[in-house]
């Protein structure tokens, strides 16, 4: 059990709230570059703030308050000009710093525009994504995590909006034993009812393995999660290397053939945009052509009748996160010793909130460019839960089954000729 008061402090994301102030110290992906290629102005909601993201005629990115300061109409329907974004209602024009450049309906020579600004936040592009920072200036550096900057690999991004608070999703990343049950026993149960005798069930044997031991270590970027599964020892990568929760809003998971960031972007108190940012290296000896565009695709988790889609790993996770409630009532829960990773994460969150209250930078905020050339994170090479066998023939048990470019990617990764649109 956790007190209601602490639960509020750890979960709420609005400006001025304890966690909201901590979360404003980090850069978040708010769209894919491909989104702006399709439409140069998109609506964004981040940390409870409604915003309009755009790219103007000069290629400059901007992120401004959605409500125009004139009559509050939506800038997300604005017109990108050569410089800045123009409100569709009366033509007021704002640049990426929030300065009002034009008020066409006012008298020529009026200085009214000089008294008007709109909220504007810095945005940067990296690895096919657009990142925003909503915190106090000076903004820290946008972390150059390995998956965003590694060369010679293929990238794709899955996305879905999950209608629940960000923290219960993050807690899942240090809840080691859920894999054995939700993605093992429950997955087998679902497949047994849905497709008896399914070959996919054979691939669940690793996921069903019993946890002999779980471990959690604090490290520079968050928490490394380790496990010893039945039949394994501490020599196996699952324990010897593990994989990290990158504080406060990412999970790194994968193996030598596929690397993924699960990125949980707090949209508001009760909604989280979930990205699966996936990077795949080619087979040995294969040199990939340059990837011009990183595709983004939607990952569904509800059936037409409203029921959850539970016959794939990430859908099972979403089912559990959403059914915990819009903000999980931690005052009603009963934690055991297998929940120690969750307890560690909550304690870390409280510590880091306290650091921010003291005016200090929290964990994971970097300002030294020398530390930011590339940030390489630990990750198992051979992960018991996921096969590193032939990725082309292995069934897609997770979100990648919705990647429309999967077949094209496989041909490219195996060095086969393909007419690629990317």
């Amino acid at each position, binding site marked *: *059990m*956790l*007190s*209601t*008061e*602490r639960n509020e*402090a750890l979960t709420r994301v609005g400006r001025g709230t*304890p966690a909201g102030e901590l979360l404003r110290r980090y850069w978040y992906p708010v769209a894919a570059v491909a989104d702006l290629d399709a439409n140069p102005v998109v609506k964004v909601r981040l940390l409870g703030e409604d915003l309009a993201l755009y790219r103007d005629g000069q290629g400059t990115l901007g992120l401004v308050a959605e409500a125009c300061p004139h009559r509050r109409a939506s800038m997300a329907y604005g017109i990108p000009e050569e410089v800045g974004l123009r409100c569709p209602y009366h033509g007021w024009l704002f640049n990426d710093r929030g300065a009002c450049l034009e008020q066409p309906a006012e008298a020529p020579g009026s200085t009214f525009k000089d008294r008007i600004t709109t909220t504007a936040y810095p945005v940067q592009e990296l690895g096919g994504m657009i990142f925003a920072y909503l915190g106090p200036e000076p903004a820290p550096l946008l972390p150059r995590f390995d998956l965003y900057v590694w060369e010679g690999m293929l990238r794709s991004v899955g996305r879905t909006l999950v209608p629940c608070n960000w923290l219960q999703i993050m807690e899942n990343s240090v809840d080691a034993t859920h894999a054995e049950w939700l993605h093992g026993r429950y997955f087998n149960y679902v497949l047994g009812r849905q497709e008896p005798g399914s070959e996919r069930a054979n691939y669940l044997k690793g996921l069903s393995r019993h946890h002999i031991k779980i471990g959690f270590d604090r490290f520079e970027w968050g928490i490394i999660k380790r496990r010893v599964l039945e039949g394994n020892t501490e020599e196996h990568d699952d324990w010897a290397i593990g994989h990290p929760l990158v504080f406060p809003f990412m999970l790194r998971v994968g193996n030598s053939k596929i690397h993924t960031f699960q990125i949980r972007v707090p949209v508001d108190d009760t909604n989280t945009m979930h990205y699966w940012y996936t990077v795949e290296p080619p087979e040995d000896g294969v040199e990939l052509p340059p990837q011009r565009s990183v595709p983004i695709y939607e990952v569904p988790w509800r059936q037409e009748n409203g029921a959850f889609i539970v016959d794939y790993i990430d859908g099972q996770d979403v089912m559990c996160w959403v059914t915990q409630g819009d903000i999980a009532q931690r*005052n009603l829960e*009963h*934690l*055991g*010793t297998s*929940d*120690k990773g969750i*307890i560690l994460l*909550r*304690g870390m969150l*409280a*510590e880091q*909130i*306290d650091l921010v*209250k003291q005016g200090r930078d929290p964990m994971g905020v970097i300002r030294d460019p020398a530390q930011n050339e590339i940030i390489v994170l630990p990750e198992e090479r051979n992960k018991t839960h996921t096969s590193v066998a032939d990725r082309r023939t292995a069934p897609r048990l997770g979100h990648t089954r919705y990647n429309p470019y999967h077949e094209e990617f496989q041909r490219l990764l195996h060095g086969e000729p393909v007419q690629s649109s990317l």
Partner: protein
Amino acid sequence: VAELDSSVRFCPACGQALAVGMSYLQEFWVATETIYYCWCSSCSWRGEIKAVARVIGVEPAEDDQSFSDLHELETIYRNS
């Protein structure tokens, strides 16, 4: 923290009230035991506090050195 039905109110290291600041107290259970994970925002002490309902010890074997030491200490105490 104040809402938590717990006898743990103060940091065991510095004595600061745990309701102050962002101190963190999380109850969890192991079998019949109730344990509180605690982080104090005042002194940064981090640890677990266990509620003890019954103290159970283990009788040491007679050839155990610690038993011999204990017996020797007891003898010294009685003789003094």
